[in-house]
């Protein structure tokens, strides 16, 4: 009985805060389409698997729009040294045999069989039901075993005190972090910040969507164009695929 009362009260408080926040914030920000948002309180579903298709033929060398957008969205400082965090980076590639040049954004590949999750001693690294690989920053002890295990160099260790982090994205010195596929935006039915920024810049190199839905745009594209996963030989089944590699 008491539990029920507490639950009701908690739900009421939760909803009231959201309503108040909405009233205060909404006029000042762009209103997004909430049509595909996951209802609040509903767990992520394994029926969905979020993923990306990156078209390297559309990605321009020197363009850093996705990186800038990621940093802004998640309150990350621009990287200057090897100890700075980078959730997403631009990689320039030159094929050794032909000299063909490619540019692409590189981030956590959100593997179906993530080695970081396997090796994490405290279960701080975990995979959500919808395929998004995350780090619980309150549980991470900073052993960096996940960084040793990741074949994509996707993770960063916070080497310095974090002084001005975004309140929506708590971060802390001594823990490991990586691309979270902008989970907070995805849960609201939005696209990750890098995808949006890439589209805005006119390149449209990153397509985001549900890999499990056969009718989603990403599934249709994957069915019709030749794509590759990075280090497919490892059998980790990453959620990110590339065209033109």
């Amino acid at each position, binding site marked *: 009985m008491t539990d029920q009362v507490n639950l009701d009260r908690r739900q009421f408080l939760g909803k009231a805060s959201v309503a108040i926040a909405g009233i205060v914030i909404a006029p000042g920000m762009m209103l997004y389409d909430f049509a595909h948002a996951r209802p609040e309180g509903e767990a992520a579903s394994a029926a969905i698997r979020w993923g990306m298709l990156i078209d390297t033929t559309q990605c321009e060398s020197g363009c850093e729009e996705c990186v800038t957008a990621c940093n802004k969205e998640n309150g990350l400082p621009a990287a200057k040294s090897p100890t700075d965090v980078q959730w997403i980076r631009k990689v320039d590639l030159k094929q050794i045999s032909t000299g063909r040049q490619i540019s692409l954004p590189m981030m956590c590949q959100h593997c179906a069989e993530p080695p970081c999750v396997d090796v994490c001693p405290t279960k701080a690294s975990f995979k959500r039901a919808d395929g998004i690989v995350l780090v619980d920053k309150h549980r991470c002890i*900073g052993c960096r075993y996940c960084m040793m295990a990741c074949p*994509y160099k996707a993770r960063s260790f916070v080497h310095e005190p974090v002084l001005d982090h975004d309140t929506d994205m708590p971060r802390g010195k001594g823990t490991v972090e990586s691309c979270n596929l902008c989970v907070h935006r995805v849960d609201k039915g939005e696209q990750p910040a890098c995808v949006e920024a890439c589209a805005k810049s006119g390149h449209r190199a990153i397509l985001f969507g549900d890999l499990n839905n056969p009718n989603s745009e990403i599934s249709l594209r994957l069915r019709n164009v030749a794509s590759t996963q990075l280090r497919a030989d490892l059998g980790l089944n990453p959620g990110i695929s590339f065209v033109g590699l």
Partner: protein
Amino acid sequence: MEKIFSQSETRQFYLIVALGLLIAGTGLAAAHFMEEHGHVVTGMSNQIVWGMPHVFAIFMIVAASGVLNIAAIGSVFGKAVYKARAPLAGMLSIALLAGGLFVLMLDLGRPDRIIVAATNFNPTSVFAWNLPLYSGLFTLVALYMWTLLEQRMNGWIKPVGLAVFTWRIILTTGTGLIFAFLVARQAYGSALLPPMFIVMSFGWGLAVFHVVQSTMYSWNNKIQDPLVLQRMKNLLGIFVLATLFLVAIYHGTNLYFAKQVLFEHFILLNGGIYPNLFWGGYVVLGSILPLLLIFHPSLGKIRCVVAASMLVILGAFALLYVFIIGGQAFPLSIFPGYEANSSFGDGQIATYTPSLPEFLLGLGGISIAFLITTIGVRVLNSLLPHDTLNQLKQEAE
């Protein structure tokens, strides 16, 4: 009472302990400095994520298990000379494990959350497996020492010794698996690593034992039987050879795989400090020279064996540095067939310069092991046995 320490000896003991405490305290201060400022004050980065502290910690953890061989040969295989040394080996094992864990824990990004590792156990993580393995070894070795030092418990020496022996093999398998389970990097991900770590532990543990035994005998004014040391030196030689063999097989198989050739060239030929440390540090100073000191007919005396043991320890550090740091310095093969370039070091050899706090933390761990051993030997006077020639002759017969 077998022996009463003179006043000057007591003063010397306290001086040594004070020195040990000072070094351990400096290690703690270094760890505090790293925690306050973050790992930015170390040489580590997002490319080299495990640095000098791991070299120290892994050496001590591997040696902690290897030193128990002395106990195993005594208790499980019944050799009297080794049996007499089992208590010292047990004490040394506890000391080295404590020292290694001191370094490993204090190098964590959040050492204050260590309890989280116990309350959120991930069964698929070999790191998590190691936690019960470490605490289990502490418990078993303590129990083992009780059976050795308490006469009424002597009947239990063999079964408990067998349990310790089994546990230590599993523990070092676990240490090797930390690297063997890493598919990402070319240096690791090999099933050869656990057996290689076990064989390395035999040699490193025995080398540490020789050095500590000689030091403790001289500090405690006890005479060490040269015959005993000479018998044990052959064993050290065999372990050094066995380690060389496995290291050669590891690199040999890698050289045979085309995809691994560039990595092997980096480690063995053109990687700067890494080939230098591998050939000069591990192969020449850490293996060939000790083998000469042990097996050359005109050498092999006590001083030679102690010098050989110190060189084996030096070689171990060189090998671990090459294995741990060199293994990370070589870029990940994310885009085979392409040259990669990025702001995050893709396709580039990573640089690493260990910083002073890292060294101080490592030395702090060694000092913890030193303190436990020194105090242990002083308190438990029977840790250093007096061997008699008769005992040796009996065993030979």
